[in-house]
């Protein structure tokens, strides 16, 4: 029975916390505003420009709120411990926001781009979901946020209204709904066994150690699985190639960067909790979570790198290359130290930049297949050079951010391996093997990334190559995306 006092108390707490929640509220408001504006300006000629300006303005306002609100920079919890704030979380939110910003700029510069105007609203909704995902300290909150992101993504992925787009959207929806259901099942198992949904809470940790380990193992595995689906790591990465191939490029740009940033940050949270627990499946088998993690990483690297070798379609290629990069980023998370987390975030930032540059160059040229790349280097000067630089950065050759990011991630893993005893533990031996496997995969990566400049400059084509004309803003944006790839090498921001 609620007394009036309790009720008013709770209301007061909620309204107090709302002041720190300003950025997300503003996002929600802009979501509604964009839908309304779509209705109001439906017949207007400048509909696209108006919607873009509004959304860009909205993002800038949200960024301003994030930076200037002192509440967001101090570690605190809101809404009865459901939400956590703090400096690293704000940094990650700013990264996600800049990804959204860049996606809208993508759309703005490409002039004849026909995308439904609901795209902007869905983008804002997705960003809101990602924000809450990053902030959540409660498993249910995490689930709600992930659902918000997923639903927005399902709709956005079908936005090329052809047969392939519909098929891809359907695949994504079915697969995603299934994985959400499994994640919910896992969460409910955990709740049943520990009595608390707040991961990181003292009660949660305590009950983890006394719970029935077999059920707990299944529960955590399922809950983990939902997250792995979101960041398209193995073994739940099968949706990525189909969706990336069929969706319009701005959607691919968003899907390949922002959810991964949020997902991996949440994974760091998970990792800090799970790191200390090993579960005995039976009296004989002692399963260490680190081992499972290493298996996931090894599978991701294997599938991502080796499948990319055989691709003919450039967008599927982007999907597999992003799966491979997620594998490398997870290596940094697997290190478990704060340096590892920082290097993983740096890699995410660099990867987002490289991906945006690569996808932008693909979008302006509208080239889908590898064969169409043949001999383009002869006619297209700037475009071909920029694409080559992107490939060099993605492959990880100095002096680009790709190399320094990989270097930092490997250093982080080696450092933590050194600290935890080196070759004396079984985990240590497996970690070293994993690192060597990652190096080997870097080599494979060089091979498939270099196919692109090879086709452009060295192979001759039978067809006649017409020259593509790009508008000045397009060129400026392309160069502006590529130059930071060098700058970030010389000034690693950690």
């Amino acid at each position, binding site marked *: 029975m609620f007394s009036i006092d309790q009720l008013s108390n709770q209301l007061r707490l909620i309204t107090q916390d709302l002041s720190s929640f300003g950025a997300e509220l503003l996002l929600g408001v802009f979501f509604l505003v964009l839908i309304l504006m779509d209705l109001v300006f439906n017949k207007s000629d400048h509909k696209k420009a108006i919607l873009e300006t509004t959304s860009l303005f909205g993002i800038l306002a949200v960024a301003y709120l994030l930076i200037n609100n002192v509440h967001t920079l101090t570690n605190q919890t809101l809404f009865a411990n459901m939400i956590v704030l703090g400096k690293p979380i704000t940094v990650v939110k700013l990264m996600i926001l800049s990804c959204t910003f860049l996606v809208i700029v993508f759309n703005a510069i490409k002039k004849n781009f026909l995308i439904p105007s609901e795209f902007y609203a869905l983008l804002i909704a997705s960003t809101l979901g990602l924000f809450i995902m990053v902030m959540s300290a409660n498993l249910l909150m995490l689930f709600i946020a992930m659902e918000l992101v997923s639903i927005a993504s399902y709709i956005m992925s079908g936005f090329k209204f052809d047969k392939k787009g519909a098929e891809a959207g359907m695949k994504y929806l079915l697969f995603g709904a299934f994985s959400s259901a499994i994640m919910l099942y896992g969460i409910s198992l955990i709740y049943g066994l520990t009595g608390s949904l707040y991961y990181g809470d003292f009660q949660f940790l305590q009950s983890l150690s006394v719970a029935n380990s077999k059920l707990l193992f299944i529960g955590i595995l399922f809950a983990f699985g939902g997250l792995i689906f979101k960041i398209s790591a193995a073994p739940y990465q099968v949706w990525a190639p189909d969706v990336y191939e069929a969706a319009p490029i701005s959607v691919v740009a968003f899907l390949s960067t922002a959810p991964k940033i949020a997902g991996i940050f949440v994974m760091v949270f998970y990792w800090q909790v799970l790191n200390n627990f090993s579960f005995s499946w039976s009296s004989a088998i002692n399963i260490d979570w680190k081992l499972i993690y290493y298996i996931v990483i090894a599978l991701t690297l294997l599938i991502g790198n080796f499948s990319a070798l055989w691709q003919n379609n450039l967008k599927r290629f982007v999907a597999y290359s992003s799966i491979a990069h997620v594998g490398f980023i997870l290596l940094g998370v697997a290190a478990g130290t704060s*340096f590892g987390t920082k290097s993983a975030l740096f890699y995410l930032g660099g990867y987002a930049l490289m991906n945006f540059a690569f996808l932008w160059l693909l979008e302006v040229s509208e080239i889908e297949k590898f064969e169409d790349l043949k001999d383009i280097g002869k006619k297209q000067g700037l475009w071909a050079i920029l694409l080559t630089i992107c490939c060099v950065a993605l492959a990880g*050759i*100095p002096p680009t951010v790709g190399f320094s990011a990989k270097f930092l991630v490997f*250093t982080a893993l080696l*450092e933590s391996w050194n600290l935890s005893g080196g070759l004396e533990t079984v985990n240590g031996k497996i970690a070293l093997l994993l690192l060597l496997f990652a*190096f080997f995969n870097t*080599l494979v990566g060089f*091979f498939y990334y*270099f196919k692109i400049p*090879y086709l452009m400059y060295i192979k001759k084509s039978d067809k006649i190559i017409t020259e593509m004309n790009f508008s000045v803003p397009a060129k400026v944006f392309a160069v502006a995306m590529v130059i930071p790839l060098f700058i970030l090498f010389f000034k690693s921001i950690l």
Partner: protein
Amino acid sequence: MHLLSLILLLPLFAAVVTLFLPDYQRKKIKYVAIFVATLEVILSIKLYTKIDFSNAAIQLLEHHQWLRLGLGSFGTLSIQYVLGVDGLNFSMILLASLVLFIGTIASWHIEEKTKGYFALYLLLSASVYGCFLALDFFLFFLFFEFMLLPMYFLIGIWGGVRREYASIKFFLYTLFGSVFVLIVMILLGISTIDPVQTALNLGLVYDIHLVDEQVVMKVQALLSSGNLSGELKHLLVYTMDTRYMTDIKNIVPESILSNLNNFTLFGLPPRLIAFAALMIGFLVKLPAIPFHTWLPDAHVEAPTAISVVLAGILLKIGGYGIMRFAYGIFPEGAVHFAVTIAVIGVISIIYGAFNALAMKDMKKMIAYSSVSHMGFVLLGLASLTAEGVNGALYQQFSHGIISTMLFVIVGVLYDRTHNRNIDDYRGLASKMPQYTTFTVIAFFAALGLPGFSGFIAEIFVFLGAFNSQSINGLLPHWIAIVATFGVLLGATYFLWALQKMYFGKYWLKGGHEWNEALTDLSNRELYMLVPLSLITIVFGIFPHLYFDTTAAFSIEFVQETLLNSKLNVQSFHQILR
């Protein structure tokens, strides 16, 4: 003052300038390139005047902080921009400037995509200088990796018939080797402390300029006694500077590359594994058997100028890397694996020579002769005697000049008839006498005739290999004896090719067309061949010109390697007592 940075950045700047010139201004682009190449030669000669060669220490040091990465409670990783020169890399820089200059002249006839070619060529030059000048392992690796990129495009776009296969094979093979170097580099980076910056962090001095020997020794004592682990660990500053890596007292005792570790992998302690990994990485570049298979393909398919640069200077980076990094940082590996390295060297000499004997394509024959000659470098290094090391360095320099000449000679023939088969020519001496003269000089220099620089190099390598048994007991005598057969084999394939192609009755496979095309040497080719011949003759008659630059370094190098290899396998406490 900032001479080293100038040598490094000048081609980089010129590459940017070339990118801004329009493609049809071919003359201007070529003049920019040749101007920069000449300037580099002049700067190298100026460098000669500025170095005091009797001092084996690193001189003209340029030192700037580049990156500082906080590793949390583990410490800080500091990566710096350090350039320096001593007896080891001066001759390499001089050789690089000469070879790149000749390469620029050899590239004069590139008419297609000239701008791209020279921009990539200048980028390659900058990377090569960077490899030799960098004393920070990270900076060296940056240039070492980056060098592959222009080479990939230069071979893949302007090369011969199978250029795509050759360029990707070269790229992936060398990258495979450099992954080993990367692993060891990262391991070293998190194991070596910078005592100067750590002293500053610990509060032992107020200003970085006040750090002297005493302070450094105090920091090292603190490190070895275990005081700097635990709470104070976050004050450590790790470094990638080679000068600190060579001193075992700078290695953190708990790290994997310290000599106090008890565990072994495949029966070897981690430091020896790291040495082997570094060696593999650099042996791919050298190239040594069995990692040499990229070289024939790359050489045959590359255009003449790129073959010149590849054989003239890129292979030497392998030898330089072995000396500076593998031998410098892990001297106990050098002593432990001395026989293995010498045997690899001898196999390279003999097997490379046998392969060259079997070749029908002249460029492939010269490529295998390069493999054979670089085997001498390995043999000289493995002997760890002053004569051997001097000979190895001399062989690097001399082979650089001679192989440049050899590839220019093949290029002369290929430019005219697009055919390099030895069987398709006979008696060229009567048609092209000037050309034959230079061919004779080049071939005799390459096989090691006294009077040319190759002889001095080989004789010193043999002296070192023979003496090694009595001086430091590392190499048994039979290794040197077997290696001398390599000289005999070298003579066979060169003399045979000379006899078959240049002497005897004049006959051409292509008949009349080829007869028209085979004019004698043009002025451009003379500009390349005359200076090279003069250099090899001068250095053959006055070897002291070269040995003056490397003598002090070699003696110090050998002494340090032998001494440190003994010290590094003792425990810390014994050293500091």
